[in-house]
Structure formats: structure tokens, C-alpha cells
């Protein structure tokens, strides 16, 4: 029977639930699950909203054999104005568990490209994963988004950082380093060196940081002031930010972020979104804070990072992480003592989007892409 890809409607929900059950049972991976509801819980389409999510399902008879999401949004490209693009996210195929459906992955990706040629994907867990390999075959350009981390409690980091402890010899060394204090010394020294490589530390005593209930005109002013400093960014005006970071969080959402406005002399100079990540086996029992998103003029980037860092430090997190692509923000994180780690967070741009972003070699370091971009917070928190 032929497979057709259609918008996900309420009548498909039982078949999606059955699809999820098959994927989880046969793959053993509890994360292989598509939205149980046809109406997205995050960024549901609504009149005049500039950003929204929409879902599609691959139907064969009465069964669902695949699904994916598109996050429709506006981006600004330096010198080329504002464009609507879409983020391709959560593609799932029956081919994961049944090889006779090996064609579904290609069908989903091509369907998404047909609906929005200016397409991108973000994250994906590294170059060796199936999705980036598939996108590369479809002539997407792939760019890693740098990963930054700052260890607040070195002994706990050394004992709990499961991602680094997979080799037994390394786990033993990390235990020794934690017990003797040499790990503490090494990490603090590395973070101090990172700070010294930056420019002299900004004076942050004149900054006032406040948790804001909503983004309003002040955020529009910041967006207008700073957008010419980026070669590519999702629109971050007040209207969009209110949708991305709603203050009213439903009980079924696990997001726990807060929006910080940073003021100098009573004037907003930038903002940051910070929060504590949900528990993740690769971080063991550590409390992991994240600087999810941020925005400011380049001269204020370091102040925003320091303010966000201090806010999470006060929460008592063991580790702070962030993904940043813009060279100014990368420098600001280094200046605040963050170390650069290996990144599995990849930005993949379709052929047409890549053409829009040319000259890529020159523009790439001025993309403003953070952890909040792409499929956004619900997936990452």
C-alpha cells in the first residue's frame, strides 16, 4: 500500500500512539516517541503568530509509518532581509525497526524540503548519527555549534561526568583527581587561563539583573540595535520571545527557565534565558545549569554572560553549559571562564538556505545560534 505524507490530524492520534509503541518496544529506546497530540504542545499554530510548530505523518492505510515536525519561523540574514524558514525536527521512521520501511526516512526529508526549501536542522547528536548523514547526502551544509562549559564543583564533576567516564582507566584517573584535589586545581587553572586569554574582566558591579515576567518594548529595542551584528539569526523581537519563553508554564511541561534582563544605569543592555537542565544520565547526579539563549550588542555580551553565569552560580549548580556560534559570544564565554568542549550540536542548512547564507566561510562565525534555536526548549529540557 502506498505511503502518503499528510498534516497530522486528531484522527491520526491513535495510529501515532501505536507507532510510538512499536518504535519503543522494538528499539528499546524510550526517547523514540512522536507527539501524542496533533496540536503541538509548544508553539501551536495561531493566527498572526510569527513562529509555530506543525507536524506531518506518513500514512500507510490506517497505520503511521513515520512522522516529523517543522518549526516555522522568521530569520534575519545580513544584507538580505527577513525570510521565513523551517526547522526540520523529530523525524521518526518505521525503518528504524523494520528494514522494509527503509524508504520512509528519505520520503520524510524530501517532503519537508518540498514544503520549505529554506530548511535547517539543529542538534542531532553528532556527525555519525543517521540524520546528519542523510542531510549531508541531500546537500545540506553542516556546521558544528561550539559547546562551552564551566565547572563549578570540580570534585563532583570528576565523579559524575558519565560521558567522560566510559573508559575504565579514565574513570579511575578522575576518581584519583577528585580525591586528591588535583582535578580541582587543574580545572580551576584551565578556567582561569580561559579568562586571562580574554580581554580584562568587565566591571559588573554596575549591572542590575532582574527576572522579567515578559518581553516587551525594551526587547524590541535590543533586537533592533544588535541585529546588524549577526549574519544570521532567528528573529528575537519581543513578540517572538513571548511565544518562545512564555511565563505561564503548564504543569505538564518540564521547562524550568527564567528570563533575565540585564540593566546598566537603569537601561536594558541585554537579556539571557537561563535554567537548570532536566536530569540526564550523561551528567550523573550533577545539577546542570544552562545559558540557553542571550542577546545584546557585542560590547555588552561579556556582561550578559557574566550576569547569567552568576545567576546560575547562585542556584548552586555543579556545571554550566551553553552552545554559542557567534564569535563575539564565544569570546564572552571564554572570558567568563568557560572552556570549549567537543560539540555534537550541529547546524545543517539545506542547499537553498546555504545559498542564502553565502559567503558561508565569511558569515559562519557571525551566525547567532544557541541551544534555544531549532526544536527549542521542550526537547532540550
Amino acid at each position, binding site marked *: 500500500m502506498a*505511503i502518503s505524507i499528510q498534516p497530522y490530524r486528531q484522527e491520526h492520534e491513535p495510529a501515532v500512539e501505536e507507532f510510538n509503541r512499536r518504535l519503543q518496544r522494538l528499539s528499546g529506546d524510550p526517547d523514540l516517541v512522536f507527539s501524542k497530540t496533533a496540536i503541538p504542545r509548544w508553539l501551536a499554530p495561531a493566527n498572526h503568530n510569527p513562529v509555530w510548530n506543525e507536524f506531518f505523518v506518513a500514512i500507510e492505510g490506517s497505520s503511521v509509518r513515520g512522522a516529523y515536525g517543522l518549526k516555522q519561523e522568521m530569520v534575519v540574514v545580513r544584507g538580505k532581509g527577513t525570510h521565513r524558514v523551517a526547522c526540520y525536527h523529530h523525524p521518526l521512521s518505521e*525503518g528504524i525497526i523494520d528494514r522494509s520501511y527503509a524508504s520512509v*526516512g528519505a520520503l520524510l*526529508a524530501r517532503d519537508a524540503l518540498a514544503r520549505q526549501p529554506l530548511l535547517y536542522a539543529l542538534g542531532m547528536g553528532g556527525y555519525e548519527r*543517521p540524520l546528519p548523514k542523510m542531510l549531508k547526502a541531500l546537500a545540506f551544509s553542516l556546521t558544528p555549534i561550539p559547546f562551552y562549559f564551566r565547572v563549578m564543583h570540580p570534585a563532583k564533576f570528576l565523579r559524575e561526568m558519565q560521558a567522560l567516564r566510559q573508559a575504565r582507566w579514565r574513570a579511575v584517573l578522575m576518581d584519583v583527581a577528585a580525591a586528591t584535589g588535583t582535578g580541582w586545581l587543574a580545572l580551576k587553572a584551565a578556567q582561569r587561563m580561559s579568562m586571562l586569554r580574554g580581554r580584562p574582566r568587565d566591571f559588573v558591579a554596575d549591572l542590575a539583573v532582574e527576572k522579567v515576567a515578559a518581553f516587551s518594548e525594551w526587547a524590541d529595542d535590543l533586537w533592533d540595535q544588535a541585529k546588524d551584528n549577526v549574519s544570521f539569526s532567528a528573529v528575537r523581537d519581543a513578540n517572538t520571545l513571548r511565544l518562545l519563553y512564555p511565563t505561564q508554564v503548564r504543569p505538564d511541561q518540564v521547562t524550568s527557565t527564567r528570563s533575565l534582563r540585564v540593566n546598566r544605569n537603569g537601561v536594558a543592555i541585554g537579556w539571557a534565558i537561563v535554567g537548570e537542565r532536566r536530569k540526564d544520565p550523561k551528567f550523573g547526579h550533577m545539577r546542570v545549569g544552562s545559558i540557553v539563549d542571550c542577546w545584546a550588542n557585542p560590547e555588552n555580551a561579556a556582561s550578559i554572560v557574566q550576569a547569567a553565569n552568576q545567576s546560575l552560580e547562585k542556584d548552586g549548580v555543579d556545571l554550566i553549559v551553553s552552545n554559542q556560534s557567534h564569535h563575539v559570544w564565544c569570546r564572552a564565554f571564554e572570558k567568563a571562564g568557560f572552556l570549549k568542549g567537543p560539540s555534537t550540536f550541529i547546524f545543517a542548512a539545506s542547499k537553498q538556505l546555504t545559498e542564502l547564507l553565502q559567503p558561508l566561510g565569511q558569515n559562519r562565525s557571525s551566525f547567532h545560534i544557541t541551544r534555544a534555536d531549532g526544536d527549542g526548549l521542550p526537547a532540550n529540557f
Partner: protein
Amino acid sequence: MASDLFGVPAERITADSSPQTLEAWDSIQHLNLVLAVEEKFGVQLSPEEIEQMKSIGETVKLVESKLQATPR
């Protein structure tokens, strides 16, 4: 083409070769097969045709019918 894509000797590729019989024939290699067919034979494959490529034999049949239908 199939031998290169799936990393097996050409003599092991038959009309019945499929994702069930060739270890390397996964979603990514299926896409690569689609792209390789399109490039080599100068054809565009529709979603329905991509789905028809369930074995090497069916892929060959599909390409032959596409080529016959293409004005030369």
C-alpha cells in the same frame, strides 16, 4: 552502483537483494540509492517511486520504465 553503495561484491547483488538481505541497506543508503539513480540516469523520482524501490529488481524495473517514458 549497488555494489559500491552497499559495500558488497557485485556477484552477491541479485534482483532479490533488498533491505532484508543486504545489511548496509538502511534509511541512509536508501536515500543514497535514490540520489545515485537520479544522478546516473538523469531522472527525478517521485515519493511513490522512491517507495517502490523495495529491491534491486524493482529499482531496475522502475529505472527502465522511467527511461522508456523519457523522450530522447
